[in-house]
């Protein structure tokens, strides 16, 4: 059974093409992926992200409980700040990547991917059990609307009592936004400046309408999951199920910095991840730019030049709407991961040369 967000009727009325994603019926696109992608890069886009999970972890030892459950060290977060983190298996594989927001001394909001929300809620409940902490999965009571792009701040500012100029990147605060009580966070998944609004489930249609009406003159456009995917790929951000899974460690995904081996106490996966760190990664996530005609896609084999057997695999790929060239992310063995290495991607019946390039592909100008 697929779930529908509180904005389902809005999407249908806007003519969206709906698809199943992570157990939810979500808008793939409204006007077209390229059009929406450009709107976010040049102006602003409005996203319904209510399919994402929201799980509260509260209690006098909530921070310590999360430090045990995750690879990062949430007690080090200042109140009102957030960081990117991962929940790993005892074997060191990634169950999900997520954002942890600290909204109070003993209050943390964890935001996992839609398709993993139940697994994360279950794991957190089990992992905090030995601590003075409790979890509350409010995913089905919380709507999440994001406004992203260079004009996002200017569109949202008149509609909120939150001072957006002092709200830093990866910060969160409580206030009112577009007529509803909200947690307003300066986070996103597009490579642009932007905000995410956590609101009550039923508040979403009114907040959506107000934002769209206020932003339309500036070129704010509803944006679907198709553009969300191409935007995050240009920004070099991993997508669970493509770059991340239970057979991949955070180090292999190039996210070594997330794993705080220096934090006090044990955490789930510590022993396995220390061993993996000492042994060195088996594979490494890299960026690729195709150097001849052809687009690499998820699952296409990667070869060393002329080699019959594949050495790696493409995890995501598309024609970058911003750069106009075919870009991809792929896992390759360590020796092939150096910037400038030439590899070949098997695209249907031919081999297309590709070059290992630094991530991200796109970085906004400051």
């Amino acid at each position, binding site marked *: 059974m697929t779930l529908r967000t509180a904005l389902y009727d809005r999407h249908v009325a806007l003519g969206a093409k709906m698809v199943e994603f992570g157990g939810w019926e979500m808008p793939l696109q409204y006007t077209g992926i390229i059009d929406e992608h450009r709107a976010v890069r040049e102006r602003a886009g409005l996203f319904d992200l209510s399919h994402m999970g929201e799980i509260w972890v509260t209690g006098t030892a909530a921070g310590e409980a999360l430090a045990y459950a995750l690879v990062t060290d949430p007690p080090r977060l200042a109140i009102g700040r957030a960081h990117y983190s991962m929940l790993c298996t005892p074997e060191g594989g990634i169950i999900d990547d997520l954002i942890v927001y600290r909204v109070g001394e003993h209050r943390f909001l964890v935001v996992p991917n839609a398709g993993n929300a139940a697994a994360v809620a279950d794991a957190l409940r089990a992992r905090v059990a030995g601590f003075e902490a409790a979890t509350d999965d409010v995913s089905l009571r919380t709507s999440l609307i994001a406004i992203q792009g260079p004009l996002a701040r200017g569109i949202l500012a008149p509609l909120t009592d939150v001072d957006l100029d002092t709200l830093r990147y990866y910060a969160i605060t409580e206030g009112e936004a577009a007529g509803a009580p909200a947690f307003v966070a300066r986070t996103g998944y597009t490579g642009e400046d932007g905000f995410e609004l956590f609101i009550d489930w039923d508040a979403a249609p009114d907040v959506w309408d107000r934002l769209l009406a206020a932003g339309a003159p500036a070129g704010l456009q509803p944006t679907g999951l*198709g553009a969300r995917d191409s935007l995050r790929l240009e920004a070099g951000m991993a997508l669970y199920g493509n770059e991340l899974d239970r057979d991949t460690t955070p180090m292999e995904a190039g996210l070594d910095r997330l794993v705080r081996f220096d934090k006090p106490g044990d955490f789930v996966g510590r022993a396995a991840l220390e061993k993996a760190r000492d042994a060195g990664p088996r594979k490494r996530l890299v960026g690729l730019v195709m150097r001849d005609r052809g687009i690499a896609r998820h699952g296409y084999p990667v070869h060393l030049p002329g080699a019959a057997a594949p050495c790696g695999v493409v995890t995501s790929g598309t024609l970058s709407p911003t750069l106009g060239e075919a870009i991809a992310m792929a896992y390759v063995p360590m020796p092939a991961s150096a910037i400038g290495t030439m590899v070949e991607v098997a695209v249907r019946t031919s081999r297309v040369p590709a070059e290992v390039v630094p991530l991200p592909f796109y970085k906004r100008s400051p």
Partner: protein
Amino acid sequence: MDVPEGLRYTEDHEWVRTEAGEGVVGITAYAAEELGDIVFVDLPKVGTKLQAGTPFGAIESVKTASDLYAPMSGEVVAVNASLTEKPELVNSDPYGEGWMVRVRMDDAGALTALEDAVAYRVRVEAA
């Protein structure tokens, strides 16, 4: 849904129009709409022999890649070179400027095995 009369349609959403005894092939408006923004069309060279029902090229949107299947057997006598620079013609004019290949058919009579406009329309409207 734009499904012109007089064309033949495949199960995989290609169309064929007979012009001067040759078959002109493209994909339908329905297929173009489903794929979304088309960014790349990979077509065979002139002289390539097509085998009915087997892939002869590929079409890519931002979101996905999809094979093109030959509606009939024959030899490619022309390729729409405009699609190299302007693949979006497949979205804007799928039955006109978005055509893909022109084929000298082995057996033009084989086209009658494909769906006509009425049958194709019924099928996609039920999808």
